[in-house]
């Protein structure tokens, strides 16, 4: 029988351990496809963070390095500076990149570090049990904002891709979502572009992707998608937020 659909070569055979309905799996698949289509599996080194995404080092078919919480981009910088000809990417949660790792997130972009970062924004700290993240929406209930995030007391959500887009070294910044088939297709396009930008040596590329956390949101997978659409999409600006002239010319 002819196989018409299977796992992309960019992923290993290991079954994902993510919770049912969690969109980490969708994003993994998209990256796996991009690695395969660009034929870079053998030349790529991924950096895993701490958080639910921390186990991604087993799921991608390329070499992988596990970093400390928040430090993935500093680690990726070290790898890229040692091996400038290889493709280096980080796969991080919003807690990793917008809380503990903020300094590194700003400075890889400022330096124009030739790496690709993927930020998975599920508006909570997933792995530790659903605490408030810098990306948590105003009024959103989490285990550390049990009365709803009070923006007057703890500030408003950080829109990380928008912040990063202001820095000159960031040449490609996209904000995507994987809530609908259409958006999934768009996300893959952006991911591919972000890797191509690196291959062309143009500068830093960030793709932020809105994702669900059914387990910590306490919602079914279907209701989670709805919650994302109703609560996150109005807060976070979507689209290719920054595409420099060189990137357009790719």
């Amino acid at each position: 029988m002819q196989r018409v659909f299977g796992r992309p070569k960019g992923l290993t055979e290991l079954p994902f351990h993510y919770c049912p309905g969690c969109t980490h799996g969708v994003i993994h698949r998209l990256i796996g496809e991009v690695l395969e289509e660009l034929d870079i599996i053998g030349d790529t080194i991924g950096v895993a963070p701490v958080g639910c995404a921390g186990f991604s080092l087993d799921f991608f078919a390329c070499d992988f390095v596990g970093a400390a919480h928040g430090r993935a981009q500093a680690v990726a910088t070290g790898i890229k500076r040692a091996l400038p000809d290889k493709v280096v990417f980080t796969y991080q949660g919003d807690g990793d990149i917008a809380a503990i790792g903020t300094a590194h997130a700003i400075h890889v972009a400022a330096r124009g570090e030739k790496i690709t970062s993927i930020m998975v924004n599920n508006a909570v700290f997933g792995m530790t049990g659903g605490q408030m993240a810098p990306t948590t929406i105003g009024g959103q209930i989490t285990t550390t904002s049990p009365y709803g995030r009070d923006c007057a007391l703890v500030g408003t959500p950080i829109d990380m891709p928008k912040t990063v887009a202001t820095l000159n070294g960031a040449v490609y910044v996209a904000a995507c979502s994987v809530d609908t088939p259409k958006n999934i297709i768009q996300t893959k396009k952006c991911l591919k572009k972000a890797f191509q930008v690196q291959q062309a040596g143009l500068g830093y590329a960030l793709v932020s992707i809105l994702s669900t956390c059914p387990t910590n949101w306490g919602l079914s997978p279907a209701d989670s998608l709805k919650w994302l659409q109703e609560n996150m999409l109005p807060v976070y600006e979507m689209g290719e937020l920054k595409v420099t002239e060189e990137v357009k010319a790719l």
Partner: protein
Amino acid sequence: MSKELMKGNEAIGEAAIRAGCKLFFGYPITPSTEIVEYLSKHLPKAGGTVLQGEDEVASINMCYGAATTGARVMTASSSPGFSLKQEGMSYLAAAELPVVVVNVNRTGPGLGGLGPSQSDYFQCTKGGGHGGYRQIVLAPSKGQELYDFTMEAFDLADKYRTPVVILSDGFLGQMMEPVELKKRPKAELPAKDWAVGGCKGRAKRKVASYSLTNEIGEVNNLHWEAKFAEMKDSLQRWESFHAEDAEYLIVGYGTCGRIAKSVVLKARKQGFKVGLIRPITLWPFPEEAFANLDGVKGILTVELNFGQMVEDVKLAVECRTPVYFHNRLGGMLPSENEILRKLGQVFDLAVEV
């Protein structure tokens, strides 16, 4: 071979280049800054890369990344900056990555001051980061040793896949001394068949520090324990100076060891059998130096802190002879006469100063 007059910090930089260090990540802090400055000037010319990180946390994690590729890499800092590197050091130890880390110890606690101090002994030798690990710590006492030990540190790091700390201080780092730019014979080192770099033509590789399964966690910890034990057995180093027939021993490392040498000579001149044990590896602590204490009536440990290495001395001595302690703090150094006077006092010797 040529001798050059260099600052201690510069000697470290030059040795790193000659040892094949390809990447340096750092963040300036006095009195270590000449290391990042020297390398910024000279490492690129030697085909390497220097990157000033946004802070010490970034710098040590950049080292972590570069080390995963098998490249030789170094960072340098001073006490408050070294504190910030502790998170990374724990991860380096767990992921078994070879990185050379220089700590030009300044005074503390807190921001402290810039003078020479040995207040980071505990932090360096007992595992300043979390989780209980060991790392090799080398204690130079002069420019030549800053150079030699830095070169050797890269080999040790590669051999044991571990971070190696060079513990210097503001006095050694800033002083100019003649340094012979020796070449080291190339040591036989294991291949880095664990390094990442793209899996083309081979199986995928991973470098990480975690295991969330207790059973695997225990296996990993037993592996580290065995490795630490092997290092402890094979790496202990110290210098003995007139210690063979000594009735009274001074123990001091780095700057204190250097000052104590003159004290030994002064005491000997007056007919007192004083000797010196100068630990060179602070971890593993040279317990073997204290194996035979026959005829030793007492020990005086001299340090620039509230009393840190003295605890290791006491453990090694196991109450076989009394151990006394002398210190200066906050950037001050003990004078030769001051140490001599203390010797006279604790051992009831009629020394002249």
